């Protein structure tokens, strides 16, 4: 850190107090959207004015899994798909922490799908940021549970044969209290969503549609990151409060964004506390 402090004021990164400058440059490819999501998140942390000492961030494995390593908070880089489970432990054991899970679609929805729906059901008080790039990028472009039908991936050399998940619908139906989706292009709205979600009590899910210039776009001949951004710009539509069941994303189809769910449910910790107080069932 010293190195950074000695540099001239104008050279100091505006996010320096949220990012681990000693880890920059990061590993993400040019044209990737994860960095944008992180910046938006960092900005949201400031806006939401919460005590940064009381925020823990947990990531799984994958490109997005590396986020924890670049954010200057108590940060944990855990095993594949188990970020939410790990975070659950943190939240349950010390309820005064604000816990954020920042990971990718493959990590959270494929191998971690079970923890995703259960955390939502339990309504563990945490923010889950799911960066969805439609593919496993870290391992080199395998099919993900979000890969649109007929899109190509290395383990689907003849096109994806499985319908993708509609993440907001899944989160909604398993009980998340706040569900939103934005693309990496809509930074300002994304930031605001983060702020709202951070101040929400219960499990919030924010899906960030992000370009993967290196694998998804290349394998499917969709151009570079900029082209993807253009595509988002031309083919995304904001529909707040849209019924989550209409939010499927087809291959190069229109992307519907917005805040879809915002409701109240008692969180796990609350339930546990009053259950302890007034339970009769001998367990």
């Amino acid at each position, binding site marked *: 850190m010293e190195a950074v402090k000695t540099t001239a004021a104008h050279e100091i990164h505006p996010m320096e107090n949220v990012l681990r400058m000693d880890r920059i440059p990061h590993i993400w490819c040019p044209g990737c959207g994860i960095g944008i999501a992180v910046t938006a998140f960092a900005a949201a942390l400031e806006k939401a004015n919460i005590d940064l000492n009381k925020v823990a961030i947990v990531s799984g494995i994958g490109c997005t899994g590396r986020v924890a390593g670049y954010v200057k908070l108590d940060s944990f880089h855990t095993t594949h798909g188990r970020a939410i489970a790990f975070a659950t432990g943190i939240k349950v054991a010390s309820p005064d922490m604000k816990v954020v899970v920042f990971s990718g679609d493959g990590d959270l929805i494929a191998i971690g799908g*079970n923890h995703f*729906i259960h955390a939502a059901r339990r309504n563990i008080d945490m923010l889950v940021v799911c960066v969805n790039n439609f593919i496993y990028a870290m391992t080199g472009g395998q099919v993900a549970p979000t890969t649109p039908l007929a899109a190509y991936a290395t383990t689907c050399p003849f096109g994806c044969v499985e319908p993708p998940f509609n993440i907001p619908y899944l989160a909604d139906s398993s*009980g998340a209290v706040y569900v939103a989706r934005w693309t990496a292009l809509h930074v300002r709205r994304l930031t605001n969503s983060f702020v709202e979600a951070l101040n929400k009590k219960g499990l919030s899910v924010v899906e960030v549609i992000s370009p993967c210039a290196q694998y998804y776009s290349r394998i499917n001949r969709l151009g570079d990151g900029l082209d993807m951004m253009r595509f988002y710009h031309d083919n995304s539509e904001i529909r707040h409060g849209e019924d989550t069941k209409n939010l499927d994303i087809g291959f190069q189809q229109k992307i519907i964004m917005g805040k879809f769910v915002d409701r109240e449910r008692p969180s796990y910790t609350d339930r546990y506390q009053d259950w302890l107080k007034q339970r009769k069932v001998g367990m």
Partner: protein
Amino acid sequence: MNPLVTAFKKGFERSGIKPSRISMPSDVLFEPEVVKDLGVDYFHVTRGRAIAFGTGLKLANPALRVVAVAGDLMTIGGNHFVHGGRRNMEVLVICINNYVYRKIAGKTAPLVTVKFSPYSTFEEPFNIPHLGNSCGAIYTARWTALHIEELAESIAHGLTKRGLAVIEVLVPGPDYYNGIGTWRDELVKFYHENSEKRDGEMPRNVGITGESKIIVGEFTDKEMPPFIDTYNKQLSAVLKDKFTPYGQTNGGQNG
């Protein structure tokens, strides 16, 4: 004989499918006699893996009909459930839900030890039909263990569905864990009396809150291409005549 098994037997018969064509992976231990009586191939698998196991059975031999009976479905097996639904894998999932309700229709349910309850008692349960529907199941229904006729109908219908069908069965107590057989009659009755039949109800509204009655019935029933069809469609589109559709010859297996 255990009412559930009766329903299974009736259902299998009515479906008109030879029992020998039916495979039944399950993390619920069925007594040998029961299986003999049903005449199906039965696999007692690791907790929660019935659907994943069934996926293997079905894909390796598409001629099979697979009935996955799941006790730990929504706990350990939750992931396999949602992904099975997404793929629309041709598996009939019978979810034996022994969740112990604290309050039903305002009354307190008879106490049953929560030992094997998939949920600690202070947690809210999943709305299984809703979750199933939201991740792509093409048929969702819920019955209590006393709706034998309806359950049998559902099973018969579910077996003919080409895709993931899920039937939630409310059974009392943890006892299934030690082999289906022992029952808590008063609780079965209790469920039965406090349930209300509402076919075609929106899955979103059939959650078991503890305040209203248990809503049972056939909720959704739609058509979606099953995994193998999508697979064959996609590959023949790309590979043209180089590709022999999978499952027709099924790699020399009993197609």
